[in-house]
């Protein structure tokens, strides 16, 4: 393309030079005033900024062409070929503006290079800080667990003491058959104790977990019977006390069954544990080399996903995408950032557009599989940030960052 342009440009210059020279020989009239276009081109070329273009790779060529076109335009004007002169001035202006745009590219590329270098510099620091934070989080988790174990031990001791006291109380009750107001007070006190045990069991959702639900329901039934009996036969204090005590025992049993289940459930739902489990699942499903820990989440590299230079998935990529959809649905508190990339082949601008389309394709796939679109953001990086140097087609990829939303 550039060779062809060079040839054509050469022809223009030749045409201009030839036309101007032949007209110079043929005519001897005074030249017309300069066209607006030629005046504008000269103004641009005299600008001090124009001199800097000579120093910038690639821009220098367009600047040189602009200067040559100005010269040819001037020669045509001297030969009173005003229309031709104006045409060359327009072409010269276009070339000058192309030089300026190329210079902007150069400046932006320098900025990009500097920014990439800064990122390279900051990434190890980010990783190290992240690791320190994770280590601390693990220490705290361990301490939490140690404290819970110590508390459980304390609780077991307390219960053993209470049970001993209870046996003594029950023995005393069985020996007595009188229905004095003192006995009624004792019954009411035990019912309150049963209510407290019930509340404690509900705190650990004993009524919700399968393993504790039946015991909890039996306790409810015992307590209800005791209440009915108290109303219908207030004199049967001994029997009522037995029922209430049994209800207390059952509530405590339901609580002790539900408590570890509930604590484990709460533990599992803690953000740091969810993040840790998601990271492990991502590594198991996509392979260690294709995952990277990110702050509060994980980056999944899905290499070789697309037909080169297209946004269409390669055949047999559905399984991978299904795994991604399953993970994103299971971990719904994580945001999803999809980054599209291409290999370094073809036009840079087209690659940028293709990478964006690739990110959109993955987003659409996830949305079709039930992922909430508001969790997803997309971005295309084109052929920047090549990850795989051994096999270029691996770079026809997307990278997915799942990050805990912190809620």
């Amino acid at each position, binding site marked *: 393309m550039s060779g062809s*342009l060079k040839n054509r440009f050469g022809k223009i210059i030749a*045409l201009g030079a030839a036309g101007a020279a032949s007209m110079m020989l043929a005519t001897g009239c005074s030249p017309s005033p300069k066209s607006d276009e030629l005046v504008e081109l000269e103004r641009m070329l005299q600008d001090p900024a124009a001199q800097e273009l000579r120093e910038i790779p690639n821009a220098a060529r367009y600047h040189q062409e602009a200067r040559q076109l100005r010269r040819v335009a001037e020669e045509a004007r001297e030969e009173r070929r005003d229309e031709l002169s104006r045409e060359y001035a327009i072409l010269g202006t276009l070339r000058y503006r192309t030089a300026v*745009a190329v210079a*902007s590219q150069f400046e932006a590329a320098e900025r990009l290079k500097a920014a990439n270098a800064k990122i390279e510099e900051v990434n190890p620091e980010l990783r190290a800080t992240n690791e320190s934070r994770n280590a601390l989080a693990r220490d705290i988790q361990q301490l939490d667990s140690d404290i819970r174990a110590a508390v459980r031990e304390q609780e077991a001791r307390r219960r053993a003491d209470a049970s001993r006291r209870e046996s003594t109380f029950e023995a005393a009750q069985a020996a007595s058959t009188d229905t004095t107001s003192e006995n009624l007070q004792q019954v009411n006190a035990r019912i309150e104790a049963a209510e407290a045990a019930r509340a404690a069991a509900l705190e650990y959702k004993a009524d919700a977990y399968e393993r504790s639900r039946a015991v909890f329901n039996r306790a409810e039934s015992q307590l209800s019977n005791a209440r009915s009996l108290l109303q219908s036969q207030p004199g049967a204090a001994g029997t009522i006390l037995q029922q209430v005590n049994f209800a207390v025992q059952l509530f405590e049993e339901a609580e002790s069954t539900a408590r570890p289940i509930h604590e484990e459930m709460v533990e599992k739902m803690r953000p740091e544990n969810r993040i840790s489990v998601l990271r492990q699942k991502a590594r198991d499903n996509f392979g260690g080399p294709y995952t990277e820990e990110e702050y509060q989440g994980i980056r999944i590299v899905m290499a070789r996903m697309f037909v080169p230079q297209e946004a269409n998935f390669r055949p047999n990529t559905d399984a991978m995408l299904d795994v991604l959809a399953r993970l994103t649905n299971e971990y719904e508190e994580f945001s999803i950032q999809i980054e599209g990339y291409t290999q370094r082949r073809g036009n840079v601008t087209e690659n940028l557009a293709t990478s964006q389309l690739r990110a959109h394709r993955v987003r659409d796939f996830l949305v079709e599989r039930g992922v909430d679109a508001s969790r997803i953001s997309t971005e295309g990086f084109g052929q920047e940030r090549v990850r795989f140097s051994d096999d270029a087609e691996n770079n026809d990829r997307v990278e997915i960052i799942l990050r805990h939303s912190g809620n």
Partner: protein
Amino acid sequence: MRAVGQKMLWVAVLAAVTLVAQLGFANNPERSRQQIGEFRAQLEELESSDRKEVATRDVEMIEGWLQEAEVLLANGQQEAVTMRMRRVEYGLDMVRALVQAGNIDASAESQEERYHQARAEIEELQSEISALERRKAELQEELNRVSR
């Protein structure tokens, strides 16, 4: 006499160069029509770019030249058509360079943003680390208390 001969020779060379150059330009109408189609496709491609806003007016200007070229072609003004096509070709080069500059600039901005984001994340992590260290000390104290 010799000077006149040299001048004649120079004119002949220039005329030959002009002829060759003209042959380069002298596209037939069919070729021009085909070229207009190709340029229009390239222009549409640039119009669909994400960074088209950096060259909106230039794209409109090129579109105008293409339309002029079509009218001139219909009127059989082949030489004027060739000139318009040259403008379009140079104009497309310019717009491509502008769009590309916009792309690289956007990439640079995005990378700078990522850098600042990473710095902010580090600061956030450091403050989280301080909070976690305090929490760890509290828990250690609590463990000592409940283990007694």
